[in-house]
């Protein structure tokens, strides 16, 4: 059994590698296709041709494409992600500053959304067709239709302009960078937007999963043996509902980077989202590709992680190897 599990994990990891490889090739090709020369990022207009050639040779840019790919990959793997052609800053540095900012926003919002969704989804699913369900389900199908930026604007208007209780821009008030409470008050609105925009789909998922489980035979069997509905819901159904959520959680891993592009833009939050949008607007190809590569890798890793978690938690998958 253990052996099978190890084999499976190894197999899944090996499967993910070609996928990562292909993604990296796509990114590389897109960079090559882009109407700019990678060396531009490292040169200034007043450099001589000789100097430029020297720099090219140093970074292997005078070599054929496949060699360049090789250098590029080597750089990626050793944490050397290149330079922005707009700001000439190191992308690695920029990312290492901005990723924690995004995580700071997304992680609490996601966790909160997940917990609330499980709770509301269970309530709705267990009371299918009753008032509670109608309210929860109705609100979530409405919520799915609300663009997050619009929700953000509404909240900004209400809490920022009308009531003026929360700041609406950035991470810190100027001159108050060290204050934790200042940071918190900056976080409130964007976190609220993210939580509300993550929730509707999660709620619907938990609800339909609960309804599905409640119609399973084993629920009827438990009823036939005198178990109370709350007992059945928490001791039997809950587990079956939570299990597939692991998959969803795993697959949400890339959201730590790209989950808040729009929201960050509205609130001017200095995370990956604003970085990315600025790069797109300024045709900053190396930055765009770096983010693309990073987020796609996270998708693949997220899928991998959720598969592995699932396989550890679900007894049925362990048995399949026999």
């Amino acid at each position, binding site marked *: 059994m253990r052996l099978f599990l190890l084999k499976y994990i190894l197999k899944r990891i090996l499967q993910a590698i070609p996928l990562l490889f292909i993604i990296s090739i796509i990114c590389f090709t897109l960079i090559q296709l882009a109407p700019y020369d990678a060396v531009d990022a490292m040169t200034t207009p007043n450099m001589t041709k000789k100097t430029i050639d020297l720099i090219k040779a140093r970074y292997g840019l005078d070599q054929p494409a496949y060699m360049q790919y090789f250098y590029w990959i080597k750089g990626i793997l050793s944490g050397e992600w290149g330079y922005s052609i707009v700001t000439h800053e190191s992308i690695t540095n920029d990312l290492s500053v901005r990723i924690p900012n995004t995580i700071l926003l997304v992680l609490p919002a996601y966790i909160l959304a997940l917990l609330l969704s499980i709770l509301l989804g269970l309530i709705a699913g267990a009371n299918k067709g009753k008032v509670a369900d109608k309210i929860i389900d109705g609100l979530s199908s*409405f919520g799915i*239709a*609300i*663009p997050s*930026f619009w929700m953000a604007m509404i909240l900004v208007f209400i809490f920022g302009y009308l009531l003026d209780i929360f700041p609406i821009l950035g991470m810190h008030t100027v001159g108050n960078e060290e204050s934790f409470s200042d940071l918190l008050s900056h976080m409130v609105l964007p976190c609220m937007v993210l939580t509300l925009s993550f929730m509707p789909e999660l709620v619907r998922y938990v609800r339909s999963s609960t309804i599905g489980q409640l119609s399973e035979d084993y629920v009827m069997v438990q009823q036939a043996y005198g178990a109370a509905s709350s007992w059945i819901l928490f001791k039997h159904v809950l587990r079956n509902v939570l299990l597939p959520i692991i998959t969803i959680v795993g697959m949400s891993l890339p959201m730590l980077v790209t989950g808040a*592009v729009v929201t960050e833009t509205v609130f001017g939050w200095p995370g990956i989202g604003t970085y990315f949008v600025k790069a797109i607007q300024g045709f900053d190809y190396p930055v765009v590709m770096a983010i693309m590569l990073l987020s796609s890798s996270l998708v693949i890793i997220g899928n991998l992680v959720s598969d592995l978690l699932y396989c550890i938690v679900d007894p049925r998958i362990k048995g399949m190897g026999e």
Partner: protein
Amino acid sequence: MAGKKNRRIKQFKDELKRNKTAAIALIFLILILLISIFAFLSPYPPDQVDVTSVLQGPSADHWFGTDELGRDYFTRALFGGRISLTVGILAMLISTSIGVLVGTISGYFGGRIDNFLMRSVDVISSIPWMILVTVVSIYLTPGLKAIILVIGLFTWMSTARLVRAETLSVKEREYVLYAKSSGQSLPKVIIKHIIPAVFPTFIVASTVSIANAILMESALSFLGLGIQQPLSSWGSMLQNAQGNLGNAPYMAILPGLLIVLTVYSFNRLGDILRAVVEPKTSGK
């Protein structure tokens, strides 16, 4: 054939009667379609700049006020709806066509073809849509065509997966086995047996995909990566509104509400279509 269609229409009507919100959603969709088609009937041309009435609140003359250039906001919203709906519908056509094609082929033929197509789907869906769509759009001249293409060409993966799963289950049904065992030709098996069975999935997927395309378009336009001036969509109007949120909050209301109601209505339409088209395989 006629009998079958009538039955479907009757079921559709029954479902509408039972489901009041769905009926309202449908009426709203018809309305929004009509008024965006007949938007030109509005007394104000959408681009008429009027510096004398800049950023006016709602009034009898301008029901939803005017924007920073004094253009009638209501008229602009109607024309914006044209763009948003066009993007939604055309992008849906592209994306569901590709999705159904890839899904059916993949599911029916299985083996290497399936493997290849599904791995491609995996690769494309590994790139978060926001990133993918924006990256591709920088290689195209921005505009209406680009945004339709970009959304259409890169959002078909979930439809393909759904259709594939459906095809896989249909092809093991005994009536398909019968057709094969009687020597029915491959194209006919697909046309007579597979496509009709996949059709409901296709219908539902397409309404949902219109809704998603409208949402995507609005997000992209809001970020300034979608529809460009002088054209405007609901999304780009909201981008505009963001700058004026402090002094003209009403500008954020109308386009936003229109997006929400349209998307919601398309989703509801998908729900009732799902209820209607799901085949009665059992007589129970």
